[in-house]
């Protein structure tokens, strides 16, 4: 019998997933107790039902906890030079209070990670990305005299609010002129009793629709959640988990680590990683910039053309082509690539997939050999695939300022 006065030590404390700044509220709403983990933090796979959450995001709005995302403050006189050498895009023309999506590569031009840079001041940037990157940032800083990196992953609470009613909700929450915020813009708002503007909102997201991300001090996190949910009550606000996010991002054509790409610093086989060209991210590689990491290698890649290219496939039938290979012939003899993500898209009403296909076969026929299961029996089916150039789904409101009322 344990004495009620003894403190019991949890021998697995270090191993257990940590709780994010919004956990107290999310735990109540996580009816299914279905938790996944992201960088050591509990993150819902889904709260109630993935499809339901997906429809909320597409028809109303939803919140997604991005506390697990890595956030770094990069500051100092050399902050811009250091970042600009690291990433393939040119950030030297960025204005303050703007965000840009970008990638960075090894010396050999292999993709390390994608992320966003927030320009918060002339010598103050915030870099966000999916995986812990301190080691790489430290290496990237080496030799620059005035730049410092502070890991803010724990020190900032961040929540994404995505979906057609998101702007309305923020307006209702009292964020003045939020509708004038342009895509990839940042605005700062008063919140609570604080005199300064502790709430930062960026018009960014990962669903292809109108959406925002909210950034605030951890102490104000729950308070912000509450006022957001108060404001959102009439707008179908609902938390969504990783599963619904994955559906939405696939329709938008966004890539995910460990799905579309492997981080180059983590692969063992030297060709199991990717270049931005393979991932169709040519537009993020700015050769007008005189120097950046991997430039020479990427120039060669551009000249030679990537061996594989990530494409969007519209696949006949309704069986998701998950984890299948693709072929240049219906007989499935000549394998030309593999599917990275696949789903039946409810809004597009199509069987969609992202796939890595050998570039030289892109002009010809593409067939997917799909495996599926019906009441414990496995079946195979070969379906014709059509390459789509545009994202499967977008909406004009995601680009309009002000976004049209919904």
């Amino acid at each position, binding site marked *: 019998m344990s004495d009620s006065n003894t403190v019991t030590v949890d021998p697995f404390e270090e191993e257990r997933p940590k709780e994010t700044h919004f956990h107290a509220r999310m735990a109540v709403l996580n009816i299914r107790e279905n938790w996944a983990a992201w960088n050591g933090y509990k993150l819902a796979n889904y709260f109630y039902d993935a499809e339901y959450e997906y429809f909320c995001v597409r028809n109303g709005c939803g919140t997604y906890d991005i506390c697990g995302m890595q956030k770094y403050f990069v500051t100092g006189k050399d902050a811009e030079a250091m970042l600009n050498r690291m990433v393939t895009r040119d950030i030297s023309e960025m204005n303050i209070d703007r965000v840009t999506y970008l990638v960075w590569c090894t*010396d050999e031009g292999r993709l390390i990670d994608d992320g966003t840079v927030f320009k918060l001041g002339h010598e103050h940037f915030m870099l966000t990305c999916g995986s812990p990157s301190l080691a790489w940032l430290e290496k*990237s800083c080496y*030799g620059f005299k005035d730049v410092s990196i502070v890991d803010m992953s724990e020190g900032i609470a961040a929540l994404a609010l995505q979906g057609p009613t998101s702007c309305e909700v923020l307006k209702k929450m009292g964020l003045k002129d939020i509708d004038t915020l342009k895509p990839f813009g940042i605005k700062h708002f008063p919140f609570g009793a604080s005199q300064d503007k502790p709430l930062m909102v960026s018009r960014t997201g990962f669903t292809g629709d109108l959406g925002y991300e909210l950034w605030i001090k951890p102490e104000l996190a729950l308070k912000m959640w509450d006022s957001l949910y108060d404001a959102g009550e009439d707008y179908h606000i609902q938390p969504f988990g990783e599963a619904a996010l994955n559906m939405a991002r696939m329709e938008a054509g966004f890539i995910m680590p460990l799905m579309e790409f492997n981080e180059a610093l983590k692969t063992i086989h030297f060709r199991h990683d990717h270049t931005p060209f393979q991932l169709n991210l040519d537009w993020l590689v700015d050769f007008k910039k005189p*120097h950046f990491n991997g430039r*020479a290698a990427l120039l060669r890649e551009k000249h030679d053309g990537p061996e594989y290219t990530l494409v969007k496939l519209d696949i006949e039938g309704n069986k998701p082509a998950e984890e299948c290979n693709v072929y240049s012939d219906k007989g499935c003899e000549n394998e030309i690539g593999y599917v990275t993500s696949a789903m039946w898209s409810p809004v597009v009403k199509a069987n969609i997939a992202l796939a890595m296909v050998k570039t030289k076969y892109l002009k010809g026929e593409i067939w997917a050999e799909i495996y599926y299961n019906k009441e414990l029996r496995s079946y195979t089916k070969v379906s014709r695939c059509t390459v789509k150039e545009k994202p499967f789904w977008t909406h004009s409101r995601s680009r309009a300022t002000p976004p049209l009322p919904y």
Partner: protein
Amino acid sequence: MSSYDTIIIGAGHNGMVCACYLARRGQKVLLLEAANEIGGLAAKREFFPEFQVSVAHSISHFSAKVAKELNLESHGFINPSCSLPTVGLNRNGEHVVLAHDEGGAASLSGVSEKDLASFKNYQTLMYRYAAMLKPFWGTVLPRIGVSGISKAMTYAKLGLKLRLLGKSDMREFMRIAMLPARDLMDEYFDNDLLKALLSWDALIGSKMAPRSPNGPVVSLLYRMGGDFEGAHYLPENGIESLIYSLRSVAEASGVETRTNFPVEKILIQRNESGLKVEGVTMPDGEIITATRVVSSADPHRTFIDLVGVENLEIQFANRIRRLRSEGYVAKLHLALHGEPKFNGLAGPEGRMIIAPTMDTIEFAYDDAKYGEFSRQPVMEVIVPTRYQSELAPPGKHVISAHVMYVPKMLKSKWSVDAREEIKNKTIDLLAQYSPGLKNLIAHAEFLTPEDIESNFRVTGGNWHHADHVIDQMFMMRPTYEAAQYSTPVPGLFLCGAGCHPGGDLMGAAGHNAAHEILKS
């Protein structure tokens, strides 16, 4: 329009060799030296009024090919008829002496019959290996992974050379090349002094002691590739004759040399077509343009300070950062009122090594690697005035000693007091072998690796600019992507000790770099 075809940074002997080759092929060459004297680590300097010395005090393997091609002999660089004896000093005068006569025949005294017999075998084998490796020190070693007939040939030749050794010698080479020096010596010899003496040239200059792995035997074979088969020598007019003959050839070839000219930055044009070297800038903002810049400054200084990381790739810059280039050799220079006497020696002849056993070396190293003074340092001593009396006023002398191991990163930080302490300790030790020494001293100078770093602009004060150890040798020197003298920055080349084949007064780095530049 660029004013020069090539600007060379640093007038150490490698920068000068490179300049001579380029100018002789018609290039307009500007050689810029930060110091007010040319010569780099081999520069002669006055360390006390009327007493002169150079940091590098003897030669083991200056390239005969370079000497011949540049005709250095007719400019005053003349090999002596005989090399310097190497003396393993013993406090009681029971020295081990390794000497070579004018015909090159070796004689070894102070050891047993058994060691004498072993020495013959050891020497025969080592010479064969040294001769086998010799051509590769003077060759640009191709990038790994790049195909091409001539590149493949270079490696095929190395393979062939190994094969020509014959099966058993080849196997033996593969076995001993990576041995710690101690294992090799213990295998052959009994005499402690002899073992310490023979392992000396495997170790000096890098962060290595007798028990260290990392290819000391390769370093030893490197040094055994000289004209006197590993024995050190002094040219007829001393070390300075190397530098002055190079200066004379440079002048005759049209090289323009400016001293007191510290390059502040390598100027790099940045535009849509990428990076391209344009020239150099000086501290006062002056710009000198050139088609290419060749740096004999060490890799760290060249890339991190002069080029700047904003022009480099991240992993490359971090490999340069991680180069092991901390110096562990300090210099003691003594101005003496008279000739020093050493117990049991007729005169202060040759290269005298104070290292009674390999353990003494090892323990000296152990202290230093943790940032402490060695309780008992080890050293190599020469009396240069014995061979070149002009270095001091008549009847007066100079002692030059390489003192190991003195850490660049002293845990308690370098200070005037710290330098004084180690200086006195070193003199005390030396006086045990030369009892009257202290009364002769007019002035003593002690240069710590930190002093060498700041006075000679060499990162870490490192002898080789970057340790000469197996992971920093050959096509990995200083690191891949920069091991063929060209660098990732178009128009920038390296030509100093930090490139293949390495440091010492040899001239091969300057020669190979010129060869590569003239090819492109």
